[in-house]
């Protein structure tokens, strides 16, 4: 009998791995039967996870940490043994605003667009109209990436501009109705806005942090402890799926599966574009190829680097103004579980890094890293402003940020 695991997800392209693990039989090959439960808000995905309706969930990475730290509700420790993907989000502005800050035809340069945007946003704020952005959740990488870019461009988020939460399916509407001037959201929702003529994509979040952690597979810590073997089997199934997912030969078929009513219930064409790193920046134009827009497998992308959890914690502190706490930092770091990932994959042909933490943003060229097994080379992982993040000195990093 296959062990059954229930996984909650939101209809976003980066829910691809659990869906395809089920559809392509990778889960079954590991002795697992996956049941997928689709919801329409992160709040509901999380509720189901916390109250046992689901065993694991597709979750925005910062929300796993916020839940562990008891932000917004009583603390419940979550564990992340697997990263479902890096990046894959974009910043889309209303067409008027985009025309003011970013030349048409290609993605902007984050520094140049940032500087121009900052000047415009300040002028606008001075006349009493603060520009407003929509992000999908307060505890989302979208929120942190957007804020990182704004702050490094000389703006004070929450002061010079306003940032509000919008449900992804309503992002295009909100742009169209001028309820917001820009959105930072995952696919297919930028493309939906572009197709409707509601906005233009000006930046991919991969331009802000070339290898930024995005969605994770999260589960309650006690569930991980109780069902460790099954979870390790799930990690292996997801790795096998990720390998299949990044092969261009499978894009068409995978897009068709993800588009089905029970999954994303959306356009296979838009989904195929996202997974093949093709972006339609403006309605009616040709698509632009932006390599590694989504990042689901290479370079040990699925490995839960502790340093990435720590970076997310610094951003949480930075924008909540709650003050750095060494105890919270340690709890946040403990959410990511490279030990589980390792024990799931040791002895397979999947490469494993020897370290569990790294200086984020320090690589500007292809670099081979030390491994426990196999070989791993990492490409550039830089932040657009040239800063790097040393996980040994969180307080120092925080103090040096604008």
């Amino acid at each position, binding site marked *: 009998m296959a062990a059954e695991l229930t996984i909650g997800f939101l209809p976003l392209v980066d829910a691809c791995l659990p869906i395809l693990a089920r559809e392509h039989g990778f889960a079954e090959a590991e002795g697992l039967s996956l049941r997928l439960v689709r919801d*329409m808000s992160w*709040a509901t995905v999380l*509720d189901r996870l916390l*109250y046992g309706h689901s065993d694991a969930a597709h979750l925005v990475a910062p929300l796993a940490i916020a839940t562990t730290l008891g932000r917004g*509700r009583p603390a419940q420790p979550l564990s992340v043994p697997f990263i479902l993907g890096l990046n894959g989000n974009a910043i889309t502005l209303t067409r008027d605003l985009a025309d003011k800050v970013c030349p048409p035809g290609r993605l902007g340069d984050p520094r140049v667009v940032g500087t121009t945007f900052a000047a415009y946003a300040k002028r606008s704020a001075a006349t009493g109209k603060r520009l407003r952005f929509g992000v999908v959740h*307060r505890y989302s990488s979208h929120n942190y990436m957007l804020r990182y870019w704004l702050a490094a461009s000389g703006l004070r988020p929450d002061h010079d501009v306003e940032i509000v939460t919008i449900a*992804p399916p309503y992002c295009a509407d909100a742009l169209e109705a001028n309820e917001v001037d820009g959105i930072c959201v995952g696919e297919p929702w930028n493309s939906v806005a572009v197709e409707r003529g509601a906005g233009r994509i000006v930046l991919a979040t991969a331009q802000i942090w070339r290898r930024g952690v995005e969605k994770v597979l999260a589960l309650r810590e006690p569930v991980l402890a109780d069902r460790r073997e099954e979870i390790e089997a799930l990690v292996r199934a997801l790795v096998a799926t990720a390998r299949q997912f990044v092969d261009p030969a499978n894009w068409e078929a995978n897009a068709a599966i993800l588009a089905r009513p029970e999954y994303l219930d959306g356009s296979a064409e838009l989904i195929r574009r996202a997974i093949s790193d093709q972006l339609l920046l403006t309605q009616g134009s040709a698509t632009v190829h932006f390599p590694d827009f989504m990042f689901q497998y290479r370079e040990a992308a699925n490995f839960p680097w502790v340093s990435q959890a720590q970076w997310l914690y610094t951003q949480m502190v930075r924008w909540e103004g709650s003050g750095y706490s060494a105890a919270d930092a340690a709890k946040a770091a403990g959410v990511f579980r490279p030990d589980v990932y390792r024990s799931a994959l040791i002895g397979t042909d999947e490469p494993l890094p020897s370290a569990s933490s790294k200086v984020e943003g320090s690589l500007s060229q292809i670099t081979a890293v030390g491994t426990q097994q196999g070989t791993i080379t990492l490409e550039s992982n830089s932040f657009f402003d040239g800063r790097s993040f040393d996980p040994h000195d969180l307080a120092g990093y925080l103090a040096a940020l604008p």
Partner: protein
Amino acid sequence: MRVAVVDESASRAAVIREGLQAFDDCEIFVVTERHGLIARIGEIAPDIVLIDLGNPSRDVLEEYFAVSRALARPIAMFVDESDADAVTASIDAGVSSYVVDGLAPHRIRPILDLAVKRFNAFAQLHSDLAEAQGKVAERESIDRAKRILMDSRGLTEPQAYAELRKAAMDKGCRIAQIAAALVTAHSLMGGT
């Protein structure tokens, strides 16, 4: 007590409202429009907010409760998180509740229990309806399949039905499935 029911399904909201009217001390506000949701909640200044779990605006609402200074009193998730049965019942039913901090549990609990009951009743109603509609659709496709067999093979109606039943038994599936397959195949072959 001021109770806001946030639900994009106007018919379900009506079912909830009707139930809550049984409480003398409840003033009920139904919000079905997602535009201006937060402003509307601000105006209502509710003690309790009920919202369906399928509503994409839940994250927006939680954000508002977490950071807003507009409401004088903070709103907490669920009446009592330690009451696991109540929480589970409400998730099963598909409703979530947000309650102003410090409201006495004995005042809130009956309202939440009733909301859960009403959500369940509504879900039951819907599945009954879907089942009834499914049955009507099945009967239609069986009738069409019989007609196809009668026209193409010159069978009588009872013979056509017997053929469908036999095929279903041979294949180990339901007559309606065989009928649907036949209707689809017929239309693919250019039939009408």
